[in-house]
């Protein structure tokens, strides 16, 4: 039963990779990475729980955190072309279209 669940998540992850490669905009790619990450979190939780080693859930927590942070970083790079500026500038500079 759970093996079917893992296989299904694997299919969903594969579809996300297709979206990552096809684009077309940068935001589609970031979205694909973010969603891929969430599915990985679920998969690790599922696996760790099912194999009977709850230590694995620690790794799932780290995944959720890192996934969020790297999504923010990617989005900032695509939008502001900078890592160091505060996000407040996100709503200030609307005029520059994305490359």
């Amino acid at each position: 039963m759970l093996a079917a669940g893992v296989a299904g998540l694997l299919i969903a992850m594969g579809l996300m990779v297709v979206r990552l490669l096809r684009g077309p905009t940068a935001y589609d790619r970031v979205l694909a990475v973010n969603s891929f990450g969430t599915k990985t979190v679920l998969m690790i939780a599922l696996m760790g729980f099912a194999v009977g080693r709850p230590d694995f859930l620690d790794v799932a927590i780290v995944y959720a955190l890192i996934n969020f942070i790297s999504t923010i970083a990617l989005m900032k790079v695509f939008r502001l072309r900078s890592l160091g500026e505060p996000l407040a500038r996100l709503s200030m500079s609307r005029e520059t279209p994305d490359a």
Partner: protein
Amino acid sequence: MTRLLAAPEAELVFAALLLTLLAGLVLALLAARSVLTCILLMSVFSLTMALWLMVMDAPDVAFTEASVGAGVSTMILLGAALSSTDVIPSVRPGRFWFPAVACLAAFIGMALALSDLPVFGDPGSPPSSYVGRLYLEHTPHDIGAPNVVTAVLASYRGFDTLGETSVILAAGVGVLLLLGGSLNSRDPVSEDVSLRISAGSPVLSVAARLLIPIICLYAFYVLAHGEFGAGGGFQAGVILAAALILHALVFGVRETMRALPVGVVRSCAALGVLGYASIGFIAILHGGRFLDYDALLSPVFEAGLPSSHLAGGHHHWGQRLGILGIETGVMLAVASTMTAIFYAFAGRVSRSDEAGAA
């Protein structure tokens, strides 16, 4: 209760499937024509890699790969990609064929060694039979920590880990020498505080405000929990650095530098390695060998303490103390080095933009 992967062989099949996905990602990487796509693929590669490591019974490595590969490496790559062109020019065929043939030859050479390699998952293979098995058998008696990986990393091979921590410090020093650690004087970020407060994205800043303390707390949990479950100083350090990176991403690197000045970060990186090494010297002063944690506590004092968990009638408080001590040193060194590296890259971009525009 339903059990996933009930047969041990299903585990191996699943591992092979994930490895296929990894190889496919490498293939896509080979064909990618844009640096940012490469970085995204690398991030997904790291996530899948960590998942694969979980299946291969290596949660500690998966922990590290998730936080380092998908987190910090992606961040640094993005920082560097910002200061260069995005398009990857295509290779001239004349320059492609010789390396391609060389790589093919390398692949064939490695494939020829296949018959000498142990069968996948063979419990009696030479790598798993001698040293690894000895560590597994002796850890409860010698160290008293359930996590064998931490025991080997921090105690049996503590000297080796000291070397690795020094390498990380050295790499951090190298980056600082090349890039300079602080913000350059002509920074386009305005100092107007009112703008920052009024126009910020409230959703993200609230989420960041909620998350950053939790992440820091979690880093210390990972540090302290390293003996009992997946985790340890390296992972905790990277998680702590991730919290600072999140702060810098949302509130600006200038704000983070105000909260945690560059000088403090640099000193902490050196202090971490110093703390690690000084625990070794304390052991010498107490009459043991370098990094011999059993010598940390005097036998008289330790006899008064209750016997520790999984110990089998043996006292292990010296090992406990030593491992926690050096893991704290590793965490301090790794967290500050990673933060210093991020500072260097994030503070750098604006200057190269000016150089590119000129």
